[in-house]
C-alpha cells in the first residue's frame, strides 16, 4: 500500500510517500511495524494523540482495519482556514 506523510510527520520521517508491504491488520499494527524500522519513524509516531490518520483519503482512527485499504496517510491535526 501507499503510505503518505504530511507536515512535520513528513519532515521527521524524511519522505512524503513510500510503498509498504505489510500484513498489518490495523493502523496501530502498521504504526508498530514502521516504528520498529528506524528511530526517525519511532520519533514521528511517539505520541499518537498528536497524529491523525486517513484511509483512502477519509479520516479514520488507529483501531481501524487495513483490509482493502490502498492509501494510508499520517499527519498532525489540520490547520486550514
Amino acid at each position: 500500500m501507499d503510505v503518505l506523510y504530511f507536515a512535520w510527520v513528513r519532515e521527521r520521517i524524511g519522505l512524503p510517500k513510500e510503498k509498504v508491504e505489510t500484513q498489518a491488520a490495523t493502523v496501530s499494527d502498521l504504526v508498530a511495524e514502521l516504528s520498529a524500522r528506524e528511530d526517525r519513524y519511532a520519533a514521528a509516531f511517539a505520541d499518537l494523540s498528536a497524529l491523525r490518520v486517513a484511509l483512502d483519503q477519509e479520516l479514520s482512527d488507529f483501531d481501524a482495519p487495513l483490509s482493502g485499504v490502498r492509501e494510508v496517510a499520517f499527519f498532525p491535526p489540520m490547520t486550514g482556514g
Partner: protein
Amino acid sequence: MRIVVQEAPFDMGAEANAFAAGDDAANGAIVTFTGVVRDLATGDLDVMEIEHYPGMTERALTKIATEAQSRWSLGDVLVIHRHGRLAPGDRIMMVATASPHRKDAFEAAEYLMDYLKSRAPFWKKEITNAGADWVAAKDEDEDALSRW
C-alpha cells in the same frame, strides 16, 4: 457548488460577483467570508507556507459543503482555498453562501469555516528570520465543531 483548491491568488471581488451572478433571484441573501494571512504579533512573519493533501482536500471540502447544503436552505456554495507560499496580507481562502434567508447564509458560512479549519487537510507553517514552525491546531477550533 464550486470547490477550488489552487496555488494562485484569487480576486475576491470578481469571485463574489461571479457567485452572485450565477445565483437565482430566489436567494435574497449572500454571505462571503475571506481569510487573510495575519502577521505575527511580533510583525516578523516572512512567509506562510500551506501544505495540503491533493485529492483528499477536494473530497473533504466537497463533503463539508454537501453537509452544509443538507443542513441549511442554500442556493449555492463556494469554497476557495489556496496552498503554497503566501505573505502577510495575502488572501488564503474564501467561502460564499447564497440562501433565501440571511440566517441560513450566515450560519452555513460559519459552519464551513469551522469545519475547514480542522477537517480539511491543510497545514500551515510560519517562516520568520528565526526559523520555521508548524502552526499547532487549537483546542478551541476543535471545540467549535461541537456547537453544530
